[in-house]
């Protein structure tokens, strides 16, 4: 186990290093010149050159990358070109909002996904099953900005149940979490359905039924605990999917998380922020996957970590 963890940790560091090189190189190759972004349209060539030298952007690629990396080790993600603040401060200020959104999304995807999956499994083959699976297909394939705007319009503008965007109370959290969670709900309903069907075929379920337990007791006490575990184990992997989703969802709902930060930075070519958010997201994905792998053997003893 320890050896496994150590190996995975080394792998993770290598992955992050790779991500940093690729992102840095891509941003370096952008035809946009960050110095001119900072200097503005009225700057003299002298000012432009002076800023270039001060930021070390006159140095060759490898020198720049090495400097970024050595600063990174000390936790220094550099300063934003546009916002003129420490990138680490900007990300730290927004991370809690993104984490909260993800917790909300996990809640909704499990609530909706598991319920749909269980019902569909129990009613397998029926019209209910088909309707639910169609719904899950829509959830998986519909673009998040469409779902987001639709929910915003129906529940925010027309019905007025929830605020139109913003941050602060649980009411603000509902619509963005739901939007982000719907995609996952689609996946979970399908996984839950097949997992449940598998379990319901098992001998012990037949035994339970034979000894005269009620349907509800069989489902909730005997089938569900076994069926749900492999599904729950996937949550770690969701983090990766969320990282992509928050960029869209946070922008639609004005949610002050790192997705919105990234979106603004991309539009304004604020390279240090793009770098910083990419690395933080990569870290989250790597950690999420690691978590999923570590949890797996506890849930299914047939899986061994090697």
């Amino acid at each position, binding site marked *: 186990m320890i050896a496994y963890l150590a190996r995975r940790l080394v792998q993770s560091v290598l992955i992050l290093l790779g991500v940093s090189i690729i992102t840095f190189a891509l941003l370096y190759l*952008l*035809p*946009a*010149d960050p110095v*001119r*972004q*900072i*200097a*503005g*349209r*009225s*700057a*003299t*060539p*002298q*000012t*432009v050159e*002076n*800023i270039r030298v*001060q930021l070390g952007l006159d140095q060759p690629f490898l020198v720049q990358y090495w400097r970024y990396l050595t600063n990174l080790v000390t936790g220094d993600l550099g*300063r934003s070109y*546009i*916002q*003129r*603040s420490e990138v680490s*401060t*900007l990300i730290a*200020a*927004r991370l809690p*909002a993104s984490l909260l959104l993800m917790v909300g999304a996990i809640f909704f995807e499990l609530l909706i996904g598991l319920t749909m999956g269980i019902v569909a499994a129990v009613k397998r083959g029926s019209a209910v099953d088909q309707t639910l699976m169609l719904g899950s297909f829509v959830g998986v394939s519909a673009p998040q900005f469409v779902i987001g705007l639709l929910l*915003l319009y129906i529940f*925010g*503008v027309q019905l007025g149940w929830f605020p*139109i*965007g*913003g*941050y602060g109370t649980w009411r603000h959290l509902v619509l963005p979490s739901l939007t982000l969670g719907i995609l996952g709900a689609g996946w979970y309903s399908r996984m839950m359905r097949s997992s449940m069907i598998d379990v319901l075929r098992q001998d012990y379920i037949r035994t339970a039924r034979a000894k005269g337990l009620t349907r509800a007791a069989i489902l909730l006490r005997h089938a569900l605990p076994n069926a749900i575990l492999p599904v729950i184990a996937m949550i770690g992997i969701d983090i990766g999917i969320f990282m992509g989703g928050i960029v869209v969802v*946070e*922008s*639609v*709902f*004005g*949610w*002050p*998380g790192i997705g*919105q*930060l990234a979106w*603004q930075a991309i*539009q*304004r*070519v604020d390279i240090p922020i793009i770098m910083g958010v990419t690395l933080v997201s990569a870290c989250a994905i790597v950690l999420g996957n690691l978590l999923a792998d570590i949890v797996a053997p506890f849930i299914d003893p047939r899986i061994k970590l090697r």
Partner: protein
Amino acid sequence: MRQFLTSTVAASALALMMSLAPAAAEERDPNAKPGGEIIITYKDDVATLDPAIGYDWQNWSMIKSLFDGLMDYEPGTTTLRPELAESYEISEDGQTFTFKLRPGVKFHNGRELTADDVKYSLERVVNPETQSPGAGFFASIKGFDEVANGSTTSLSGVTVVDPLTVKIELARPDATFLHVLALNFAHVVPKEEVEKYGADFGKNPVGTGAYKMTDWTLGQHVVFEKNPDYWNKGLPYLDKITFEVGQEPIVALLRLQKGEVDVPGDGIPPAKFQEVMADPDQKARVVEGGQLHTGYITMNTTMAPFDNVKVRQAVNMAINKDRIVQLINNRAVPANQPLPPSMPGYSKDYKGYAYDVEKAKALLAEAGHPDGFETELYVMNTDPNPRIAQAIQQDLAAIGIKANIQSLAQANVIAAGGEKDGAPMIWSGGMGWIADFPDPSNFYGPILGCGGAVPGGWNWSWYCNEELDKKAAEADSITDPTKAEERYKMWGEIYEAIMADAPWVPVFNEQRFTMRSPRMAGADALYVDPVHIPINYDYVYVTDVQ
């Protein structure tokens, strides 16, 4: 020394004043009631509130409410007036300015402002370590070069005469200098606070302005509260302004309709514009005004076939500007010259190139391209610019020019324009020139003068006419305010001469449309203030306070 007295030259465009009654009482709105709070929304985070650095339309006005400079404009106008200066004198040769400061002005930290602060603030902007995008505006001050190249940090042209008097000497006459002193870059900052916060001063601004910043929660909101010690007694009217960020314009509009927002800072989203204007109730709360903006197509005069003036003139005749204006729901007026109509120096009698496809074709044939040619049109990729580019593309196709559209992120278009052989044609939308100050010279240097035709410059036509450069320098050395009209006339001639060479197709001048909640009041001019965008925070008020 020559002294200008209020009464004699108030009418002149430069409006030099010797002394000013305590904070001109006539500008006050008799209906204004103090108190109340408003909410303004923006899509993007506020970048920085450091006056030496902030240079986007969002933070420009916010900084103006936190800080003050020696000069400012009458609210809602482009008329200069002293602000932190109580009075000033200009020497006979127009190269020495002596400012008497208003006594008893206090920074938000309680300390009184002195002439040393003025000197420090100017030196800080010019100092290369500050990385100010506005440093170049101060190039006419004596000693600028030495500070700009890092050999000293002290501007030899700025002298503290006594705690309330500061003298600024210029190395050359500069007719725009008072405008330069009204720029945010010349706003006065307290040294001790700048040193305390270092690079984070922009997140912890301390000035002398009408409001002080009391809270900045990153990614959520910035809060301004009334400065009770503000020198301009009675101002501001509002107790508090909350700037909420991260709000899409469409969401902001919905919230405005629900009464949750007072001004959507990013304006009315284009997709909703017609809907809003069709509703009399909403339309009544929209204020329309001109702005010092021109949208144009550049043609790279160093790249064939645009090195031929006839080709450029033909393109000028080929563009149907009325249709482009319609395309953006008439949110602009067609242009025929680089200067916008509200800018002094605008040639009212100049007619420009009329839309005439046949004449354009003939001219193109004359230039040796009877069958047209293929070229590239660069454009920023946000709506409505790609749609405008398509309209331009169709207009060009009508005279045989096949223009391929390169729709890119803003920074990439700017980068292409700054390369000598980077972009044959650029539609300036989203990057079009908005004047820093209301003076015709501001539309020349960086975008049409030889100085801007350098790698990384903003003169995307790479148009360089040495003769006009000379004439421009000559016009800007006319510092006598009584000759201002003569100077504007010279500038008008310069722009007409440029149009004869046709490096640009001036397409339109954007109009501004600011929407406000029903409870917001104050003169309409405050909502389309040419200097304060979107609104002049210091003078607006709300009606629902007792």
